[in-house]
């Protein structure tokens, strides 16, 4: 199927893009970044935006910048950028590198963008789960200024966020996790590259020899939006890594969630997957 007609705009600066968006958002003008979700939706005619503002030509959005203990991921950074060792320093980079190979397929990852995935807010998005796990901030710019929105204030539901239509996500900021942080990821999908039915991210640090601190457990794909699971983190903090401890954390994560149901996946099935993925993410981190 062919997309419906639209006017094509190709700004070369963020100021120009934000001005266009402010003017065209009321008419359902949309941002085009990687296009790997938007263009299929247009091909199905489920989206028929009369204006597309293509931000791929904006040089200031193209890079990953490290600024002290913050890494800033520009709106046009492709998924494949994170496959390169050292693209993001330290434990955060290692974690993102474990996650990225689960995103769709390679020819999708060469075009799709990190920030586009976050703005799209699909519950099965690996990056939405990662931004939540790391407590990232979404930088949204409009003609009226810049907002830095914490991940746990950004996602509102299935493909719904607190971004206003006139706001362009210019970057996502992630804190660099302390050296020595152990990070793991696991997801389940029926075929490689399919949307995940459930995923989990786990990280922690060992202090005083062998005691777990700074636990982070985030679950994605199972509920309408990703979130950190405080009950599972409480179960992990202060313990010594072992299979029974990890199993108790996985049980706590499974008990804490309210899984979505669809024609293929019952709530109980998803709950079971969350248990298994949390356990695997912890084993992957160890």
């Amino acid at each position, binding site marked *: 199927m062919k997309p419906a007609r639209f*006017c094509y705009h190709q700004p070369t600066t963020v100021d120009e893009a934000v001005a266009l968006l402010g003017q065209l958002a009321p008419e359902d003008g949309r941002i085009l970044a990687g296009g*790997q979700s938007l263009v299929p939706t*247009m091909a199905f005619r489920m989206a028929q935006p009369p204006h597309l503002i293509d931000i791929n030509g904006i040089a200031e959005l193209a890079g990953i910048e490290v600024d002290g203990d913050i890494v800033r991921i520009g709106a046009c950074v492709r998924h494949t950028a994170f496959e390169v060792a050292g693209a993001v320093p330290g434990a955060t980079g290692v974690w993102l590198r474990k996650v990225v190979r689960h995103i769709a397929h*390679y*020819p*999708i990852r*060469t*075009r799709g963008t990190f920030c586009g995935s976050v703005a799209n807010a699909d519950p099965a998005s690996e990056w939405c789960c990662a931004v939540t796990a790391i407590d990232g901030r979404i930088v949204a710019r409009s003609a009226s200024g810049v907002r830095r929105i914490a991940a746990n204030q950004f996602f509102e539901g299935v493909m719904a966020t607190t971004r206003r239509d006139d706001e362009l996500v210019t970057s996502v900021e992630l804190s660099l996790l302390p050296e020595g942080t152990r990070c793991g990821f696991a997801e389940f999908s029926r075929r490689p590259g399919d949307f995940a039915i459930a995923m989990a991210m786990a990280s922690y640090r060992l202090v005083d020899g062998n005691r777990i601190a700074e636990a982070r457990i985030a679950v994605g794909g199972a509920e309408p939006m990703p979130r950190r699971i405080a009950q599972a983190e409480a179960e992990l903090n202060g313990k010594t890594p072992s299979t029974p401890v990890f199993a108790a954390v996985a049980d706590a994560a499974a008990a804490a969630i309210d899984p979505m149901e669809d024609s293929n996946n019952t709530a109980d099935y998803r709950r079971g997957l969350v248990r298994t993925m949390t356990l695997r993410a912890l084993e992957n981190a160890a």
Partner: protein
Amino acid sequence: MSGNPSDKVEIALDVNGRVHHARVEPRKTLVDVIRDDCGQTGTHIGCEHGVCGACTVLLDGEPVRSCLMFAVQAQGCKIRTVEGLQSGNELHPMQQAFMDHHALQCGFCTPGFLMLAVGVLEKRPDISDEEMLDVLSSNLCRCTGYQNIIKAVKAAAHTMKAADD
């Protein structure tokens, strides 16, 4: 930039080293322009929503779904399609390996698989078998059952590497 949605825009696309000029609507996908306006019909259109990979081409050396881009976006990029693989009358090692290993039956998916495998191997000649399997899972083939495609790509990887050494 276009004023009215139906306004056509002038574009120039570099396909296999030759510049093609066309007047197209912004909504026209890269694959449609490659086929209709550039006359390079070797690239096939399958699902038109990014799932099957039949339309895979190389954009500045990276495999992309050409149904998920608009042609206006590909200006200034170097596009390679299946027509650009052979040199003179000599098939690319990947094309030869697909013949030798019976890696195609109906052939509809073949241009996409060739560009995917060539694009990845040119960047990563030492890619592991496991990672290549993951890469090849990007595209759909409804005839072969994939086993002969995997055999062909492994054989071509060897030939391409030997030619480079």
